[in-house]
């Protein structure tokens, strides 16, 4: 599953940040997961629980889902992803590479493919709490 690759990336990044900040034990990691990437949160949580070792092993991963909000650069329309009717193949492509949304999604008002993803694209580490 692609979620495992994302989980590995999170673990690597948390380790790196912990090293830089001199944290010996990580207690909590807050992660934002954008709707656009359609990550299966249960799979991501399971992968994180299996991959966490060393100073991360006791960390709690707090995952917040963020709704995808899009804004047309041409006419200014703002909309949420649910407005666009996408087939399974297009959804899968966007899951792997969210930027392929620009091939499948158009502004619901003017039809332009030139839009901005205001929020809810992919995965982001929001904060890390730990012990020095």
């Amino acid at each position: 599953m692609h979620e495992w690759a994302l989980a590995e990336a999170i673990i690597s990044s948390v380790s790196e940040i912990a090293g830089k900040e001199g944290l010996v034990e990580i207690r909590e990691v807050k992660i934002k997961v954008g709707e656009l990437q359609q990550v299966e949160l249960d799979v991501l949580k399971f992968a994180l629980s299996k991959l966490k070792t060393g100073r991360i092993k006791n960390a709690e991963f707090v995952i917040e889902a963020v709704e995808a909000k899009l804004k047309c650069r041409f006419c200014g329309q703002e909309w949420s992803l649910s407005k666009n009717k996408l087939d399974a193949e297009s959804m899968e492509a966007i899951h792997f590479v969210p930027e392929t949304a620009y091939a499948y999604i158009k502004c619901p008002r003017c039809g332009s493919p030139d839009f901005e993803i205001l929020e809810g694209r992919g995965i982001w580490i929001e904060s890390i709490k730990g012990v020095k």
Partner: protein
Amino acid sequence: MADPRIAIINKRLEKVKRVIAVSSGKGGVGKSLVASTLALILSKENYDVGLFDADFTSPSTHLILGVKEIKIEEGRGIVPAKVHGLKYMSIVAFSREKVLPLRGAEVSNALIELFSTTLWGDLDFLIIDMPPGISDATLDIIRLVRKIEFLVVSTPSVLAFKTVEKLLSLLRELKVPVSGVVENMKMKEESFLMQKVEEADVNFLGEIPFDPEIENTLGDVNALFKTDFARKLAEIASKIISPSV
């Protein structure tokens, strides 16, 4: 706070011995053809080779290789397709033949996504077909891929070389290794480009004459191998394999 994908990129590439970005100052110099054919030549020499088409808005390596469908698999990440013995990745696997209009920041995001999730495994060479110029993708690859080296393609045109000069200057400033410059589409006897490259203290790897037959080979790798283009590039490839030759 942090984009978690960045930290994993060099781990994804740790079993790749050499990562070669085939680049150019401007478009239309045959960069994708050099990248694709070089990958095939190295594979034919029994090296394990990957080809990554990083030209997201104008991908063309699938057309050169005659790939009708790019069959990636999902493991603990994305397993590249197998094409003519190469591990192959292109945005076309996801965007298909649809128009993919991307701004610079979006190119960066897609590039980071694919570098952080593609499982290249063991490779002797990963050849990257870069978008032309020195915008986001070039800067990101230099920033993110520790073992990157550049192979620069130019035509003998002054216009092409003027843009290559800027690319070489950027690479020098950023201390990025350059395997050398390939002169493509040479149409007459002259040494303008070789002289300029050597003056810039960069390795001139060789010249490839303009080959009018090449257009007829697109999509047919067996025909591509029989061209003068491929024969000349094979000589250049031997210098890339063993830089001292």
